[in-house]
């Protein structure tokens, strides 16, 4: 019975839409035909979108690695003033909801951006600089937001790295360079592979940056949206299949590579000590670089805040916005038409997250007792919405449910639910994995029935993971843009869609006020999560 419900959700929400899209892409007019595929590859602009998506993703991986890896080493190996503050702020891009980050970069570094104009004025240039647009803007936004993956993965890898490995290399005569290239980096391969994978797939899936900055740059994710908008559904399906396939094939290639060798150290490890920066010159340099980095990292957040106080329609050719007001915020909460998107986002995220929570708990309880093909099947379906770009998930669902759910307010929360399944299941799974199986056995030997044991012991122990996963799902849904733009109807338009429409009307202040609200909601949710989790955490968890 439980198995049936768990599987039914996966089959309806994941298997059916994707299978539908895949099969339907070969039946554009009811009968088997490869015409749409042939047409796609015969059209130069489509081919260009495909190669652009791939090239931008490769470039994003390289850029993010170039920023994230050295930073991870810096934070891990050296102790300097402000290290922990900088370390925390380095993750700041994560706090920016996708669309908000993009518009903020536009306000800062775009043609009429504050920084671009400021530099133009300061150096007396003929044109604004850096004047980010098109490819440069897309890559900038990608590198800014995705280097965090490299920073986090490599930091975690360095934490696990046994310092004795490097010391052993030293005693065997290895120089700093040999140590790095022959010992440290090879041992970090799983982290590097993981970070590259996530960065590449996020970049393939990236919609906001190319959509806003697009210029002449076509990418697959945006092409899908455009095809759908133009009513060319067969082409949208083909593009969806191609985008899905490229993401999945990268996933499989990297997973396979990672599985080939073992990298974990064989003995138990000792963490390395940080080198304290002692020379005064180095201290000054570290502090200066650190301060600039903090400013750079927080500038987009700061810019949205500043913009949220700008009176709509007043900022045109000036370097800085000329007039400020609080009315954007007042309007947000007093005008029902402006408050509606906020209410929509809140209820849809809450409903989706509640469903994630219930389904996630039931599914993990049921799944972890099984070790058969059914489980592998369920696992595969659970991971799919994570591996697939948001555009793919949304388009598959909207097309496959076109006769039942499409056009209703229920479809968007359902899409949120499906997209966040992997997140919640993984978080709950991780807490289960940490529990010593003997805890459950101990409950049994003490005479509790299985149901009682599960209720009292297991639920209590997985609580941290459940909370963490749910909160993450909630904030992800709150700022969601990529699939919302495909699925929303007017009566359930979420905050992100409203930001976009305000932006279109050049109401930059109102759009930014929504952005700030999102950032605050996300930050508060994360802080509340930390609070809930910290007291008495891991009481029995090994």
């Amino acid at each position: 019975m439980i198995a049936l419900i768990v599987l039914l959700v996966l089959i309806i929400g994941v298997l059916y839409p994707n299978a539908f899209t895949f099969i339907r892409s070969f039946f554009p007019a009811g009968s088997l035909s490869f015409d749409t595929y042939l047409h796609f590859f015969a059209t130069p602009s489509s081919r260009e979108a495909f190669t652009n998506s791939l090239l931008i993703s490769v470039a994003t991986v390289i850029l993010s690695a170039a920023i994230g890896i050295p930073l991870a080493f810096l934070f891990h190996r050296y102790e300097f003033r402000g290290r922990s503050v900088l370390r925390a702020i380095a993750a700041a891009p994560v706090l920016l909801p996708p669309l908000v980050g993009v518009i903020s970069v536009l306000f800062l570094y775009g043609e009429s951006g504050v920084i671009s104009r400021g530099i133009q004025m300061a150096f007396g240039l003929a044109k604004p600089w850096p004047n980010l647009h098109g490819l440069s803007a897309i890559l900038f936004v990608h590198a800014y937001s995705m280097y965090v993956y490299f920073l986090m993965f490599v930091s975690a890898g360095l934490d696990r790295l046994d310092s004795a490995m490097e010391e052993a290399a030293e005693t065997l005569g290895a120089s700093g360079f040999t140590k790095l290239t022959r010992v440290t980096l090879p041992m970090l391969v799983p982290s590097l592979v993981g970070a590259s994978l996530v960065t590449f797939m996020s970049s393939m899936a990236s919609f906001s940056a190319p959509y806003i900055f697009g210029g002449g740059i076509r990418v697959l994710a945006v092409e899908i949206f455009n095809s759908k908008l133009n009513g060319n559904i067969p082409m949208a399906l083909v593009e969806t299949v191609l985008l899905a396939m490229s993401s999945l094939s990268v996933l499989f290639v990297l997973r396979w590579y990672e599985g080939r060798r073992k990298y974990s150290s064989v003995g138990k490890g000792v963490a390395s000590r940080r080198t304290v920066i002692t020379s005064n010159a180095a201290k000054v340099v570290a502090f200066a670089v650190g301060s600039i980095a903090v400013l750079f990292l927080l500038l987009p957040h700061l810019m949205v805040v500043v913009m949220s106080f700008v009176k709509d329609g007043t900022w045109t050719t000036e370097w800085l916005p000329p007039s400020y007001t609080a009315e954007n915020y007042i309007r947000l909460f007093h005008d029902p038409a402006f408050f509606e998107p906020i209410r929509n986002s809140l209820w849809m995220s809450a409903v989706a997250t509640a469903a994630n929570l219930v389904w996630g708990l039931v599914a993990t309880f049921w799944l972890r007792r099984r070790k058969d093909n059914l489980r592998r099947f369920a696992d595969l379906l659970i991971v799919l919405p994570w591996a697939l770009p948001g555009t793919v998930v949304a388009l598959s669902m909207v097309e496959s449910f076109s006769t039942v759910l499409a056009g209703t307010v229920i479809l968007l929360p359902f899409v949120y639910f499906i997209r966040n399944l992997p997140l919640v299941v993984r978080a709950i799974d991780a807490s289960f994995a940490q529990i010593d199986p003997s805890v459950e056995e101990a409950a049994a030997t003490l005479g509790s029935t299985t149901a009682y044991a599960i209720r009292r012991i297991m639920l209590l122990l997985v609580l941290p993971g459940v909370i963490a996963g749910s909160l993450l799902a909630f904030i992800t849904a709150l700022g969601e843009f990529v699939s919302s733009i495909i699925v929303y109807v007017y009566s359930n338009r979420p905050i992100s869609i409203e930001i976009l429409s305000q932006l279109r009307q050049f109401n930059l202040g109102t759009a930014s006020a929504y952005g700030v609200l999102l950032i605050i909601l996300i930050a508060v949710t994360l802080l509340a999560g930390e609070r809930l989790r910290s007291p008495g955490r891991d009481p029995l968890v090994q």
Partner: protein
Amino acid sequence: MRHLELANLSKLFGSTRAVHELNLHVDRGEILSILGPSGCGKTTTLRMIAGLEPPTSGSILSNGRDITTLPARLRNMGMVFQNYALFPHLDVFENIAFGLKTRRLDAATVEQRVSKALGAVRMQEYERRSVHQLSGGQQQRIALARALAIEPEVLLLDEPLSNLDPSLREELRDQIRSIIREFEVTTVFVTHDQQEAFALADRVAIMEAGICRQVGKPAEVYNRPADAFVAGFLGKANLLPGRFVGLDDGVTVMVRPENVVLGKRDGRTFEAFVGQAVMEGAIVQYTLDYNGTRITARTFHHGAPTYQPGDSVAISFPADCYHVLPKS
């Protein structure tokens, strides 16, 4: 001939004194063990010799040359780490060859030295194995082979046997001993296990709280400990209050439990009561009471404890088996 010499070596971590004014030397081909409880500074000492930890003050000399500030990679010290630190992404051959390749030796020499090292630890057939496929004892031997392959100036072993099953320890201990003898390499090894230190070392240095308490041959430090700490750390010891006849100052006399003679009335004897008799297998351990002073005695038995709790027994200490501790 002095191969390695530590002179007034000190190490401070912040305000914590890890090693204090340490003076030690190791002769060529000698095996020195640094023995002490955890946190006594023995591993820090070893790491300073390896060049992994800069000393706060003092100096380290190798062959009379000051190497105090020489980086680890130029010291040519072969170190075996407590957790072996085998490179998990390299196989057995590549692990052992690592130090040879950093020395830019030609392929043939590398090959020949690796097989010599593998032969020494009797693991030739494991050349192409992944280190994950090895048992703890095998990993230990590969770590040893890796350190020996570079033909080190001094071989450094950090608690080499502590991560192994007790049943394996003795066997590996003897293997290590014969391998070290075969290579005739000067060795310093660190341990908290007194038996291990005695079985492997020519000389033992006992450290506590960063200070070297005593250095000497195993029998010397066991029978003639410099102070109460050394006496107690190297095994059970009865520390008895005593006095030289004719002198007023009290002294402490150490008698090892196995040297307490029971039931023989020759020479000077005392009457004591048996408090406990614990059968430990090959021996019986008695806890005796003499006028409120507790004395431990360990003797072989003939099937069962000779004395029972409550019995009165004559005890004596043979003249050459007690040691008067110097006044501290």
